[in-house]
């Protein structure tokens, strides 16, 4: 994998999930997931719709509990420290773990230039105009978006195409220098060309960030990821981790029968 000289070497962050169970109100959505995400690599999260991929991802930056009735038990260790420990502030966790959503969500009243550094400014407390401008250019270049937007940084983010908006959101997430990047089907709303651009971007970032990417598309998971986690929900609709391994192994020699059924298209 090509190493990008324009990227700062991020510390080797270890992200581990232990016995994680997540609820919506009283209803259990995923149960007992144990998973160690490889550092500075892309882990793909695959499985049929409704098996709990989004839920699992949202437990990794504590946004699951921000949506009202979300509850979690178990542990998520970031560099050995449980992000769910009582003394940990979820806001601080989210500064270290960035997230890109299924649908691009540029902020409606911000320009491209403001949006891309909004995290740096309003979460990171950076005020200096010069530093913000510098950071904006750096992350927009990282996201392969600079050349397309450099002449219209004061246009609204919502004026961009879907693919550009999603790259803006990736740039925005990178601006706060997170160690982990969570991506929830970031290309599902995009056309094939925009999808290819985002995949290329993901691959170029993977040596530098620990990326966890939910994918609805198995070809995509096979193309971009180094490791793959397969989830499945049974008849009670509670999602569980079925198999985790190197992507190559999971796709060519799955250990579990259910994984094989899924990747050969027998269901899902």
């Amino acid at each position: 994998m090509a190493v990008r000289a324009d990227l700062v070497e991020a510390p080797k962050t270890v992200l581990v999930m232990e016995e994680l169970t997540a609820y919506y109100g009283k209803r259990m959505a995923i149960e007992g997931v144990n998973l160690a995400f490889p550092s500075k690599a892309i882990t793909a999260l695959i499985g049929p719709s409704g098996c709990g991929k989004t839920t699992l991802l949202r437990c990794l930056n504590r946004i699951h509990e921000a949506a009202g009735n979300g509850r979690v038990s178990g542990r998520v260790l970031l560099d050995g420290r449980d992000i769910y420990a009582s003394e940990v502030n979820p806001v601080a966790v989210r500064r270290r773990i960035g997230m890109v959503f299924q649908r691009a969500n540029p902020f409606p009243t911000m320009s491209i230039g403001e949006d891309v550094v909004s995290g740096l400014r309003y979460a990171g407390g950076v005020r200096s105009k010069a530093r913000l401008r510098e950071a904006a250019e750096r992350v927009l270049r990282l996201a392969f978006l600079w050349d397309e937007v450099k002449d219209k940084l004061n246009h609204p983010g919502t004026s961009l195409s879907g693919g550009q908006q999603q790259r803006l959101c990736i740039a925005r997430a990178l601006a706060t220098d997170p160690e982990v990047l969570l991506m929830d089907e970031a290309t599902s709303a995009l056309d094939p060309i925009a999808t290819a651009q985002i995949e290329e971007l993901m691959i170029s970032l993977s040596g530098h960030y620990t990326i966890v990417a939910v994918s609805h598309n198995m070809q995509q998971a096979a193309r971009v990821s180094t490791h793959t986690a397969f989830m499945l929900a049974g008849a009670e609709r509670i999602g569980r981790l079925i198999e985790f391994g190197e992507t190559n192994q999971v796709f060519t020699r799955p250990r579990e029968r259910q994984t094989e059924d899924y990747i050969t298209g027998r269901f899902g």
Partner: protein
Amino acid sequence: MTGAASLGPEGAVAPRRSNRAVRRFWSAVGVFAAALCSGIAASTLIVIIGYVITQGIAAINLPFFLEVPRPVGMTGGGVANGIVGSAIMVAIAALLATPVGVLTGIYLALFGRGAAAEGIRFLADVLSGVPSIAIGLFAYTVFVAPFKHFSALSASIAFAILMLPIIIRTAEEALRSLPSTIREGALALGMSLYSATVKVILPAARPAIVTGLLLAVARVTGETAPLLFTAFGSQFWELNPTNPMAELSLQVFTYAISPYDDWHRQAWAGALVLISVVFLINVFTRVALRTPTGR
């Protein structure tokens, strides 16, 4: 919808056709009834506005806007003090109601689960149904009677209470109707709930919140009942809100029930001004405050 059924057994064809004719008939009746009702509603409105214009336009002239009322029986004079008084009272009411209403709306939209929030919502709904005369009476009892002194301020408080439920509900709606991904996007960047609210969520909802504010202003502009025993009215220039003050709709009321033709004409002119103001607020709300992001 009809595709699958028309491929069905032959017997099904004949009844289908008559079914369709019946449905067409009732559909036409429905459309006609709806059009008729819309026509009645629209023409009533046009007749009222047209009548106010024809009656009021004659008394509209420069002195009407620039002079204070003449003593009883004398012709001429104007309602300048009432127009200014209305503006002062509504402005104070907006200053009082906006922070309380918007903050309550934020609370309900962002944290509003559970009994306390449901209680506030219920109270706001009840409040919006309370007749304005009752709210005026309340303002009288609490802010006029103890001081033995009518005041514009007590009218502003009554207005503010009338505005509150409108501001609260529109602010809550404005915030709720934002997609949750906007809020989550801000939180996911590591913004505190406060920063996310102030820097991202509120700006996005601002046009809709301002719309609610203006609708609330339009709602109280022209309210007369609560003024009868709060602002009370005045024949003179009065700019001090702790004193009784003239107000346009109150002048319309006083002039309309007077025995003088000249005052009747001025009452119509006053009504015309009130309708125009409310009309302009509504037009402005629609035209100027379209959400900038609404593509």
